[in-house]
């Protein structure tokens, strides 16, 4: 597909520009023999991690539907692992926890592979929702029962159910768009992650007024508004990846970015509650998988259902 090639050439260009800018900044700041400031060290590792993430997504795309499903099953695994690590678990939860990793993740993604949308949509919110507390009750340990059960439910919803809506875009039968589901995924990831990057850039350049100082010191109104407007424009420019008109593409991108912002905010609230700065250390410079995927967690299901309602 010509679109895929253009998309990846574009990404390559963006990353090359980013690396070039970083190299110039590094050179400028170390010219006088000073040590590299921590913002720049972080920027460098962020850009390096982006190269790796784009490479991983590209490889998954080469393998088509199976590759993308496997990639996001792995994202779910890594995200759920980070999430459960921060929750309160007891010895009696061992089998439930194993089931979350060994049963729920494989089943949810297998349902995508065999295109069984009906069960995909209700497997977690109906069957797992009821089965998990039932099994926890059978284990007989009632200490902090409600807390444990709720935390498990949340983890599965965020890390598995919501994230699985990214590859679920492949299963939508959009008239006149057959076989191009991968491009829709690329559009969603590019706008949501682009919005994260642009919010970071605008925040660093112009950030003054904090949105929620108690939750996240790095989220500012300047970053938020600048990031979302520019990412929506990016979405409108990328309309050729989608079944949308440029205006529709811009609106869908804006909606996804706003959802993505809330995802990041909720993730920050959880981290603040648990007294940690990052979810993990899997992605250098970014933190854990959930630090990178939190915006996608909130954006993907809404994006999916908007497309499903209006375009199929």
């Amino acid at each position, binding site marked *: 597909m010509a679109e895929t090639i253009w998309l990846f050439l574009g990404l390559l260009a963006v990353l090359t520009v980013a690396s070039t800018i970083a190299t110039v900044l590094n050179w400028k700041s170390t010219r006088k023999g000073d040590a590299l400031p921590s913002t720049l060290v972080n920027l460098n590792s962020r850009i390096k991690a982006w190269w790796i993430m784009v490479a991983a997504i590209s490889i998954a795309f080469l393998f088509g539907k199976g590759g993308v499903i496997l990639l996001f099953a792995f994202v779910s695994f890594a995200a759920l*692992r980070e999430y459960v*690590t921060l929750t309160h678990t007891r010895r009696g939860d*061992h089998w439930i926890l194993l089931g979350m*990793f060994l049963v729920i993740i494989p089943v949810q993604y297998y349902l995508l592979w065999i295109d069984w949308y009906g069960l995909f949509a209700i497997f977690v919110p109906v069957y797992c929702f009821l089965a998990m507390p039932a099994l926890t009750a059978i284990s007989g340990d009632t200490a902090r029962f409600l807390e444990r059960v709720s935390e498990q439910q949340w983890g599965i919803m965020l890390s598995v159910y919501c994230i699985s809506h990214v590859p679920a875009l492949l299963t939508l039968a959009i008239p006149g768009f057959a076989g191009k589901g991968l491009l829709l995924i690329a559009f969603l990831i590019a706008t949501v992650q682009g919005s994260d990057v642009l919010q970071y850039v605008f925040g660093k350049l112009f950030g003054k007024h904090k949105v929620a100082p108690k939750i996240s010191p790095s989220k500012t109104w300047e970053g938020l508004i600048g990031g979302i407007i520019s990412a929506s424009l990016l979405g409108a420019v990328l309309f050729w990846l989608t079944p949308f008109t440029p205006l529709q593409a811009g609106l869908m991108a804006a909606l996804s970015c706003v959802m993505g912002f809330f995802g990041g905010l909720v993730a920050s609230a959880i981290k603040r509650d648990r*007294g940690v700065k990052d979810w993990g250390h899997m992605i250098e410079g970014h933190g854990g998988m959930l630090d990178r995927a939190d915006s996608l967690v909130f954006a993907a299901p809404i994006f999916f259902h908007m497309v499903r309602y209006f375009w199929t």
Partner: protein
Amino acid sequence: MNAKPLLRRMAAMVLAGMARAITGVRPIWQGCAPSDRQRIYFANHASHGDFILLSACLPPQERERTRAVAGADYWRKNKIRHVLARDVLNTVLVERNWVERREDPMVIMLDALNDGHSLIIFPEGTRNMTEQPLLRFRSGIYNLAFARPDVELVPCWIENMSRVLPKGAFLPVPLLCRVVFGAPVALESGEDRHAFLHRSQQALLDLDPEHQRALDRG
């Protein structure tokens, strides 16, 4: 002819790889750095995975010469366990039962040290199944510190492994783990057994972030 060292090395590599894949374990060298000095690593113990996790955090060369000290009564209970402990995991087996034992654990551990090995010991003597973060320390660690003051005693706090693979569980739950390495503890001149046991236990407990948080809350 000599297949055992190869088997051991392969097993160690596979186990360390699995530990990393499942737990994403990261060493935190908080009080000391990796070194080629001979060491005794002492750690909290709640899971069979503990020593695999700890050795996965060591640099390859150090990992190769580091052996875990384990209870002979448990690991000699049946043939499979015994072969696993002796030939695959390369553990130093000591008898814990005072009354029935035939070999002095101290002699066996000192032999391993004299052969140039580093050791991993669990001074609580058994897996901790209580809600307490740490059980009372047995005397072995004091005897080792007294007999070999040249060997560094490094406290290592193993985080989360008891949730990954609790006692009696066979399959591990993937959770993120860390091993925090603290500053070496040495026996001071004139320090008695009780004081040293207390001090080394406290040094280990101080590495537990949960314990720190509890102290901060008061």
